[in-house]
Structure formats: structure tokens, C-alpha cells
């Protein structure tokens, strides 16, 4: 059903911390291995061992440089579905296979009813959807819907695989619709932002910007003075062993 559900349910999503992401691709690969089974499995890999290896991934980690020369920063940037509040990928879908859940806001593709027209992937500005050429349907991040409510795994593990695995604590999961949730407070504290908000999709996932690096003025303060003849001091130093 491609109408967008009315607001009121939870807004589950991710917060990605660009200040601590080291670009290790753990999130991307762990997602790939988690999704060898479950909702969208199997994910294909074409030319897996040959000349043009490429497959369907739900999360990909870019790396950028921002700025020039000594001011340049290297920033690692994981990109996956933002589970937008007003996702065009849902409204453009002609069959209703692409839909947004009312109860938690997760955007999903039903692989049994998708006709593989690819329009939703055109509509998504963030490249969150990748087409499985082998199965003929569109696939995307499910926010690990098969983990977050899964009574067959320990409660502390009921978070998306990418969040559980991230070694740098760069990924957080929770209800962005609850201003008191840990993720919402994190976003407020760190000035988390939307990607391309002017497009109006109202992404739920937020990105925490890299913290500014301190700038050091040319030393106006005098350098710490030398100790005149430090050897004299050290001779007299009352040390005890």
C-alpha cells in the first residue's frame, strides 16, 4: 500500500556518527551476511570471482575528502535507507509492494508483489534501493525487521546488525519520533542533520557531523621559557627512590 501512513507511530531509524566512523565497512559487510537469510534473502553477487564483481548491498560506505591542503578532512560516509517520513519511493510504486509501516515507519519492499519496474530506485535520491537482477525485484535495508522484534535472539541483540557490529560506536538505533529517546537526544546534542532536506522526503535517519578540529593560532602566547641551565636544577632536585 503506497499511501504514506498517518503520523503517530514510532519513527525507527538510525543515527550515523560521521565523527567516529573509521570507514571499516563492518556495517556494510555484516548487513550483507545477515541478509543471506531472512526477509530479502538471498542477495546476489554477480561475477563474484570474475572480472566485474558487483552485488546487491543495503549499505555502502563512501569515503570523502572535504576541504583543501592542511585543512582537509577525510570523512567516511555510510549510506543506506533513511526510512523517510514522506518517501517518494513508496508513493511512486504502482503495485504497493513498496510500503511504509504505520507502526514503526520502516520502509520495506515486498519481494512477492514487486514487479521490478525500478521506479522507486529512481525516486530515491539517496540510492537506498538496489535491484536484484537475478530475482527481478527491488531490495533495500529493512532496518533488520527480522532482528529488532525477534524473540528468538537475546534482547540486547535486537538491534540492526550494522549497529551491533560497528566497532567505532558510529551507529545508533532507536525511535527518532520520541524526543526523549537516546537517539533523539544524541541528535539534539550533536546537531544531527538530514541529507538534502530541501527535497522534502523528511529522512528519519540522521547524520552527526564530524566535530570541528580546533584551530591553532600562530603562537601569540610566548613559548614556554627554557629553564636556564636545567642541569643545575637537576643536581639539586630532591629525589627519593
Amino acid at each position, binding site marked *: 500500500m503506497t499511501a504514506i501512513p498517518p503520523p503517530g507511530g514510532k519513527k525507527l531509524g538510525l543515527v550515523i556518527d560521521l565523527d567516529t566512523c573509521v*570507514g571499516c565497512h563492518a556495517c556494510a559487510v555484516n548487513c550483507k551476511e545477515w541478509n543471506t537469510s531472512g526477509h530479502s534473502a538471498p542477495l546476489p553477487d554477480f561475477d563474484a570471482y570474475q572480472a566485474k564483481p558487483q552485488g546487491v548491498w543495503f549499505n555502502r560506505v563512501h569515503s570523502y*575528502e572535504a576541504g583543501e591542503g592542511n585543512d582537509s578532512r577525510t570523512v567516511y560516509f555510510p549510506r543506506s535507507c533513511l526510512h523517510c517520513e514522506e518517501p517518494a519511493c513508496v508513493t511512486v510504486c504502482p503495485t504497493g509492494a513498496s510500503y511504509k509501516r504505520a507502526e514503526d515507519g520502516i520502509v520495506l519492499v515486498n519481494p512477492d508483489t514487486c514487479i521490478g519496474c525500478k521506479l522507486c530506485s529512481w525516486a530515491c535520491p539517496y540510492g537506498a534501493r538496489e535491484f536484484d537482477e537475478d530475482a527481478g525485484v527491488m531490495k533495500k535495508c529493512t532496518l533488520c525487521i527480522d532482528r529488532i522484534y525477534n524473540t528468538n535472539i537475546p534482547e540486547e541483540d535486537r538491534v540492526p546488525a550494522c549497529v551491533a557490529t560497528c566497532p567505532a*560506536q558510529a551507529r545508533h538505533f532507536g525511535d527518532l519520533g520520541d524526543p526523549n529517546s537516546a537517539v533523539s537526544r544524541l541528535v539534539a546534542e550533536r546537531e544531527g542533520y538530514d541529507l538534502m532536506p530541501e527535497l522534502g522526503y523528511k529522512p528519519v535517519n540522521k547524520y552527526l557531523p564530524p566535530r570541528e578540529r580546533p584551530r*591553532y593560532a600562530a603562537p601569540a602566547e610566548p613559548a614556554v621559557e627554557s629553564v636556564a641551565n636545567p642541569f643545575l636544577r*637537576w643536581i639539586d632536585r630532591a629525589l627519593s627512590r
Partner: protein
Amino acid sequence: MTRPSAAAEVIDLSPVVGDEVKYTTCYMCACRCGIKVHLKDGRLRYIEGNRNHPVNKGVLCGKGSAGIMQHYSPARLHKPLLRVGERGAGEFKEIEWDEALNLATEWLGNVRATDPKRLAFFTGRDQSQSLTGWWAKQFGTPNFAAHGGFCSVNMATAGLYSIGGSFWEFGEPDWDRTKYLLMFGVAEDHDSNPIKTGLAKLKARGAKFVSLNPVQTGYSALADEFLAIRPGTDGLFVLALVHELLRTDRIDLEFLASYSNAIWLVINNPGGSDDGLFARDADGKPLAWDRTTEAPVDASTPGIRPAVVGTLTLPDGRRARPVFQLLAERYLDGKYAPDAVAERCGIPAATIRRIATELADVAFNQTIEIDQPWTDTSGRRHEKMIGRPVSMHAMRGISAHSNGFQTCRSIHLLQMLLGAIDTPGSWRYKSPYPKPIPPAAGPVGKGSNPNTMLPGMALGFPQGPQDLLLEDDGTPIRIDKAFTWDAPLAAHGMMHMVIANAWAGDPYKIDTLFMYMANMAWNSSMNPGESMRMLADKDPATGEYRIPHVIYSDAYFSETVPYADLILPDTTYLERWDCISMLDRPIGSPDGPADAIRQPVLAPDRDVRPFQDIVLELGARLQLPGFVKDDGSPAYRDYPDYIANHERTPGIGPLGGWRGTDGTAVGKGAANPDQLARYVDNQCFWRHRLPDEQLYFKHANAAYLRDAHAMGLVPNTNQIVLQLYVEPLQRFRLAAEGHGPVQPPDEKRARVRRYFDPLPIWYAPVEDTAPEQAAWPLHAITQRPSIMYHSWGSQNAWLRQIYDRNHLYMNRRTATALGIAEDDFVWVISRTGRVKGQVRLMEGVNPDTVWTWNAIGKRAGAWNLGADAPESRDGFLLNHVISEFRKEADGMLQSNSDPITGQAAWYDLRVRIEKADTAVADPRYSTLPRPPGLTAPPHLLRFNASEPA
């Protein structure tokens, strides 16, 4: 407005993950994280980090998460292979294990019965050196090592000779408390997950993280301050910091006096045979000068008022000066001032001064106090633990240079001056360290006789020239010439010299080269083209291969397979028992010892055997002492039997947990046959948490040393005195100056005199002083990508989608000035060769440095990848332009290594860049054929645990 769709999806919100869970240890890199493996229908379903494991605490990096593809790789070998064509042609036939082991036994038996040292046994990236090293000892060959000489021996040795621990495996920053971290030469590994988790903690609490690296990637991206230092100049930067701290007297002299050899007296007798050695009493104890009695006294005496500066006269008339005096004199010299080093390092002098100020401010004005009394080895009780919360970490960026040992020593010097060794918030030892300095006896190699074991382990820690492995006529005992005047402190061996020396018969010809997990015909080699040629080369006089027998064990079809005569296929890490032992490369933490095992998660589906089982079996077949019982039957059934029941010394075995017949002994105790079951029950690891009183100052913490001794971690309860001044180096120097019975050959005296400085020095990497510098204006280095570990990673179906080729990264400004644009194909030209690569421009790189990701480039056909896989078509190895030899100014060929430890000096490489006409990869080697047992892999992979792939 909302109507339910007729196609509303029914989702299983609680699918069962798998039908079986097993815990084990990852082996996608050297981090050894604990993993929880889910299986379904006997196939791998999901691998996640184990929340309870001390190393990773539940996280798992990209490599570990790709374990499924690593295990099901089509590059896996299937059965023992015997070469049938020429070496390098890759023609093999499958044989049974019996035949393979008979053949190996025959070759090895012949070697042992004639001249055991003609076996060179090198175990690459393997982490079971305590077994393989012992096997080599019992066999009787000194020619054993793993890959450390190729990798990071500089860093390890510098630490072990200075502070009784080292960066990476034997120590780490106090992640929970440190306020300032200075990191040198680390891209993104060593270690992997603990550093990531640790950095996240630092950022969360606002601690400052400064990273020095020529390239801004990986951890450097997170740094609060990034300094694009010129490769090989870190030591200069550090000594400038030392200069600043001394100049402004912002040092912890109390710490130095109590815990280091700062107060030890050094004989001043130029020309004499005791010049530069410690003054010692009749019992050999180093002396200090007590200001109270104005007399020399045993430096460990409590309650004295030691002199730190001055020139003192000993009762016997000899003059001596405290170590600190020598140190201060040297580093206060203007040549170490920030202004003098700034240009060389590429870091402004003001920045160096500021960082010195910051370090001192954090160390001395932002101390941490923990209300925890503790007693030091002098019997003094301290009411609190005072922390200097400055920490440091360093790895290959400083190690892989010909000045790496002294550079790393200078970092330890800096730590000691700041009083920042094993205090709250500073760098801390990881159990079982600290160990005495140095941690073990010298290497053993003399006395290699037919059918005789060596009296000691092949690798060790020389204390002076008498420990060198030289025959009486000065001939090197080892094939790699480790522990000779070329590399006296080569504590990890020199894997990179083996093939070249064996080919040349210099110092002697060998019979068998036995390699494990070492891709020495490709990326584990400098100048792989030469290595390949040498392995396949025949002596024209005899028509025989110059290296008569090559045995190779690996799990995968690597580039080295075609160059072996006999292939013994290994299991993957999920198919075997293993132990991550404190006798080996431990996973202890600063809070206490720990070790771990691997258990088979799956049974092998092909005719392969775990390498360690093979080692034990060969040991039994060869009747090596310790590997057979008195009646000649095998002492161990298999590796797990060895792990649980072997005692290297009484009460000390591979694993420290659940020892004793009742399983309650910690660290030391009788073998417990049930031990592995206890580990499996505990998710395959053991840890022991030290009491709070023992957590810091371990080098002088009486309670810690007492318990560590009881656990078998240290040989006695003596204080481990930190060594600012490393006396063994001076002994080598004295030999070079003409003293003592073992002296270097004349042509090497100058070199030893120069480099074997007992206090850290900085010298330009040797390559930088070679002639015609202007022809090679750029530094060329590599970094390890986060997603790959040597050549294992890029064969992985998932990981290779992230990187299946590598580029040559250049500074944008530098490239533009050379007329080179993004995506241009260029030649990277060094003194010894050239290789083609495609350019990518970046900002965050030292302007005089180019770099690439290592180990992505592959040889066509290897690893069962398609013949036109980008790894071989577009990827390139910088190794091709590095030689294991370097021509000295006098024309002599010298190993391209650190002169002290023999560490392969990778990052000394100097190159120039020229545009290339074509994009065709160069060099390019012939496509390797698929060995028997391997089949063409599918093009389409749809991995689903419920269906066959």
C-alpha cells in the same frame, strides 16, 4: 484514506537464526576477536562478535563479517598435491595424505640426518609459533621464524628492550582514562576493533587524539589533529618533543628515578672496553650515586637520594655519569630543537612546541588520581595511583623503516620522560607483559648436528655480541643472516631474505624450504618477480633446482602454490582447533591475562588437515624429542591433545585457564586433560581479572609481580627497570670499536658504531642517503585497507566488491606540478624496478609522498579468480619495485633492512613518477592454471544458508 493493500506483506518477525551456535576466534586478521557463529543445516548462517569476549566485546569488523565467504572460497585447496611439471608451471597431481607425509618425512628426515640447518621453516602470518618454533628446535634447525622481520620487529624489539612491553600486542592506551593520545604510523589495524572502540570512547569524552601519518585515512580521519609527517622522520619529531620537555624541565624525574635506569651510572672511559657500560658492584648490580652518602650504591637500594646529573668518580677511580646526564646532554642540543627538525618532518616548529606543551600540560596538570593504595618493589606504600594520562600507539609506519628501531625507542623515551608508562590514563602493558628486559634468552643456533635438537629456541634476544649466531669463522649460522653483524637484534628473523640467500647459497645452500601461510612468491616478498625466478631457478651445472625441495602449506591457492613441490592443504579457521596462547602472541588485556582457542565449527568437506596436526605428525614420524614418547609412539594424538597436555616448562602449557587436575589453577598448574572442554563451555576464551591493586605500575608493583610470578608470567618478582639507555647496544658498539672476543668484520665496524647507540638517535632512512637523491624525489609507502588482511582479503567474494583494484594516491598539488591528472596511468620507478598504476589525487597526504593500498594486486589465475580479474589486470603491488637488497655507497649489497633488527625497510622506498603511454598492467605474469581439486567458480552467487550456493 489508508486502505490496507490486498498484498499486505506477512513478515516473520522472529525467524530462527540458525539451528546451532558455536563460539570460536576469528582469524581474518591478527586481532583475534571472539565470534559467535550461527549454523543452519550444517552451513554457516551468520558470524557476529561475541559480546562477552574481552578483545572485541561484541563488535566485529568488516573482515570478520565476511568470514562466510572466506570459508566457502573457491580458492580452497582440496587435497595434498605433488608437483608434476616444472616449478612455476602450476602442474600438480593429487596424492593421498600418507604419500604426502611420507615424502615430507623422507625429505626432512634426510636433512635432519645430514645437516638439520638445511631446513628453512618459515611460518608467515601464523600465530602458533610456540609450537612451530619448538618443533624447529627439536628438529635441530636454527632456520625458523614467522613474519615479524618483514612486518614489525622494530616496534616489538624497541619496546621489549626499553620498557618490557611494546605497542600493539603487548600494550595499549588506557582507553577508559587517557586524555591525550599520540598515534604514529597506523592506518587502520593493529589492532583493529579495540582501537576503534577505544577511539570512540576518547571522542565521547573529549580526549584529544593526535595522529601522525603521511596519509589521512582510517584512524587519522578521526583525529583532532592530523600531521602529514614525512615518512621516516617520526623519530626526529619525537626527539624534538623530548628536547622541548627537557628544555623547559617538564619531565617526571621522580618517575625516572624510581622506575627507570635514569640514575644508573654509565662508565665514561673513551677507548676503554668498559666505556658506556653500566658501573656495577661485585654482584653485577648496576650502581647509582647516592647524594646522601656521596658514594655509589646498588641502584635498587630504597631510600637513597640519587644523582641524576653530574660526573662522578667511582672508588676505583673510573669516572661515570648517570644515564640521565647523557640523555639530557644529547637531547638538549640545538640539533633536536623544533626549528632544526621542522622542515625535515614537514611539521611547523610552532606545532611541535605546542604539542610538547600540550603533552606536558595533560601529563602534569591534568593528572588522574585513583584512590587505590599499592606497594612498589622497594617496599614503599603509595596511597594513590597517580596517572599521567598521556598515551601513545605506534605501528608499521614507524617500524617499516631502516631507522624504525631507534624511532620506536625514542617514542618510549618520550613516554618515560612524561612518566606515562602503565599509569592511569597512559599506555598500559597487556598481560602477560611486562616482562624482564629483554624477555628471553638469546637465540640458539650453534650446535646444529645431525639428528640432534638445538639446546634452545631459534629466536631470542641477544644481550651482546656473544649471543650472535656466527660460526667461529664469522659465517652466519642462519640462512636469513639474522643475529649476525648485519642484523644483530633480529628477534623475529628475516623472512624476506630467505629465498634470495638460499638461491645464492649465501651463506650456504639449503635443502628444503618449508613455508606455511606465507605468500612468499608474491606479496610477502620484496621484489616478487625475483623471488619467483629464484624459486624456479636451476643450477646449470647440475640441472637441479637451487632450492631442492619446497613444501608449502596453506588453505588457499595462493601465488606461492605453483612454486612448491609438495602442497599440504590446511583447513580454514572455522574448521580447526587452535590456541591463542600467552606463549605466543597473546590477547591479554591490561586488566589481566587472557587466552583463547578456536574450535571446529564445521568439519572440512575436503581432504585437508589442520597444519598444526601435520606439524605434530611430522614430529612423531621424525621421532623428534618431545613429539614421541619413550617408546617412539606419538606423544600427542592431535593438536587439541597437545594444547591441553603439553607442558613447555613444569606447569606452563599453551593455555593458562583451568589448569591443574581440578581445573582451578590460574596460569600455572598441572595439565588438565579436560581443559579444552572448559574453554568451549566458556565461549572459547579465558580471562583472569587482576585485583585493583595490581592494575597499574606493573613493572614495579610488588603484588602484581608476585602473582605474575606465581602464574608463570615472569621468571621472578624483581622490579622491571625501564631502560632509557639500552646497554646491549653499547656492547655491540664496543665490539665495533675493537673490544671483546666477537667483533664485526672491518667493513661493518663503522655501521655498527653509528647505529648501535644505546640512547635513541634519529638518522635518515638509509635510502635517503643513497646517491642521486634527486632522481627519486618522492617517498612511496603502502597502507593496509581496513577491509583486507594481506592477500587473504581480495579473494573474498564480498570484500573484493569493495576493493578489487588499487590506485596510486598522490598529493593534488604535487601531481599538478608534474603535469599528472586524476586517472592518468603512470610508472612508479624506483632504483630497482618499475610498476604501472593509475593515479588518484588527494589532499590529505604529505606532498612528497605517494601511496597505495597493499596486497590487493594479484597474479592472474591465482586464488581461482578469473584470468582478467581486476586484481591482476589493474591492481598492482608496490613490492615489485622494492628490493630486499640495497647497494651501499661502497658498492656492497646490504639487506634493505634496519641495521639493528633486520626489519624489512618497506617504507624507505624512494621513487619518481612518470606518465605511462598505456593502461596495460606492467609487470604482468603468466596466468596460473587451476590446481587439481579446484573448479571454476560460479559467476552468480546467491548465498543462502538453506540452499546450496
